[in-house]
């Protein structure tokens, strides 16, 4: 479905953030990108969604293919139209809009009101805690609720692939678990694939496959079950070295 081939990403023509990054993602799967701060997880997602260029970065080498077609030259909104949706890091809700209006923004490209309404009901069923808050401005929501809203808003566009950037950032452990359970449920019910950049190893409990990044490169990859006990994972982002284990 998605393949990233040996990309190099540069910010402001100076900072090399990705140095030959490759990954593939099959339909109906959850793939995890693991790594410590600055390892290039976010940049990988931005390279796929096209947001990289909006932030003064560019791909100097390599290509990104979605369904066999190159998408690395497209604008972010064109990529979004293909069904690849990026949930940005740190709860990027529109604070001045209500929850309902935020969800409607997610369905911006769709016209069928009946379908939009039923999708909205479905989002509320995934995240029941949002239901009583529909007409509240999203700026007043708690961190967990904003993260749920960001994901729900993305679902409103009926994406085929969701790029999730650190959904656990700044949330309490209970809420993190809750969100990951729902993500798994969405994957099975909606046939949506996920590429999740995450520091928290809990992501491996729902992922099918994982990549471990270090300084812009994949240092290790494999089935999620295998990665969970892998030494390289601990080394790369828990900061525990081999002789300490």
């Amino acid at each position, binding site marked *: 479905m998605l393949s990233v081939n040996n990309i190099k990403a540069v910010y402001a023509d100076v900072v090399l953030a990705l140095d030959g990054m490759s990954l593939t993602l099959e339909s109906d799967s959850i793939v995890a990108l693991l790594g410590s701060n600055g390892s290039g997880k976010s940049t990988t997602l931005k390279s796929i969604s*096209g947001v990289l260029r*909006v932030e003064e970065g560019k791909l100097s080498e390599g290509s990104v293919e979605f369904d066999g077609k190159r998408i690395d030259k497209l604008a972010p*909104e064109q990529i979004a139209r293909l069904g690849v949706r990026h949930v*940005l890091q740190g709860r*990027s*809700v529109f604070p*001045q*809009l209500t929850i309902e209006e935020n969800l409607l923004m997610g369905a*911006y490209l769709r016209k069928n009101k009946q379908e939009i309404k039923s999708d909205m009901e479905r989002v509320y069923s995934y995240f029941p805690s949002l239901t009583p808050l529909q007409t509240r401005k999203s700026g007043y929501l708690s961190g967990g609720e904003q993260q749920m809203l960001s994901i729900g808003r993305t679902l409103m566009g009926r994406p085929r692939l969701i790029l999730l950037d650190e959904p656990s950032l700044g949330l309490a452990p209970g809420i993190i678990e809750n969100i990951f359970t729902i993500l798994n449920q969405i994957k099975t019910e909606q046939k949506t694939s996920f590429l999740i950049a995450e520091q928290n190893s809990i992501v491996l409990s729902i992922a099918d496959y994982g990549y471990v990044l270090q300084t812009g490169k994949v240092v290790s990859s494999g089935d999620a079950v295998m990665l969970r006990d892998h030494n390289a994972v601990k080394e790369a982002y828990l900061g525990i070295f081999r002789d300490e284990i």
Partner: protein
Amino acid sequence: MTVRGRKKTDYARDLALLGTRQRWIALAIFLVVLALLPFIPDWSGDIALRGWLRWTNETIIIIIAVLGLNVITGMAGQVNLGHTAFIMVGGFTMAVLTTAAGWPMLAALPIAALLTGIIALFVALPAIRLKGFYVAIATLAFLYISQFIITQFDITGATDGLYQIPSPSFWGFKIKGYLRWYFFLMPFLILCIMISANISRSRIGRAFIAIRDNHIAAQSLGINVSWIKIKAFFIGGLFAGLAGGLLSSRNSVITTSEFTFENSIWYLGMIIIGGAGRTAGAVVGVISLSLIRQILSVLGSSGVIPGSSTTSIYITYTIYGLAIILFVSFKPLGLISIWHKIKLNYRRWPFGV
């Protein structure tokens, strides 16, 4: 206002602009007040209402223009320092069409609005490439460029401007005098307020707010940010062009020197003080600032404020500057936020704080 405990039970009611019976009553009272407003005697005691009604008419036109600025700057977040130039373009379109081409005023009015909208659309083109501060500079440049261009041609009256712009007339009934103008302008105002209120709760209005609040997130939802900016400028231009057309017809004269950079700053201040991005905020902002300006100028010319005639102007500027600083630091959501707070307290009563 709805009392605590009253819930909207279906989507139609939630979406309705006038959801409750109280709102209909409030609207009816408001319309009656508007109809009676010109018959309130002014401070000089006569109902011929020179200063008062003249001010009201001017304020109505400014409100229409500022509603347009509210779309561009308040909703879409593109700082526009050239809004006065959009009004000027509308005004000159009206003037040229009615004097040189001999069109009736009412036929020229939609053309004035449309042409301004299209020109605003071209001003938006640099804004697509630029961000924040630089958009402001680009629109400022447009103000001076458009003034320069208009003064270069004889058809636009060169530096002298144009005169004898006709008033509208309906089958021989001419709109003359402050009172008739008041009732002629009022439907335009109501229409523009309704359009503006509808924009902010429609798909396009949400898109404006989305690109203002987080343009990257908006893009990743498939919104073409450039296109939305162009639309914002176009809609804002329509309002400004309409206001300009009405203005030049009402004044019957137009010169480029009326449309100063200073006016652009006043319009921005009106949005800030009223509450940016909200229709009611724009209306309240224009009325309150124009009122302060008017009261001070009356006090100045009647000798209540000592000193030369310019003293009251300086006092106006000082108050204006202070008001903006105070509002930005203490009430960044503007005057209208005070009203929203009152409403919320009423709804929550007796549980509010």
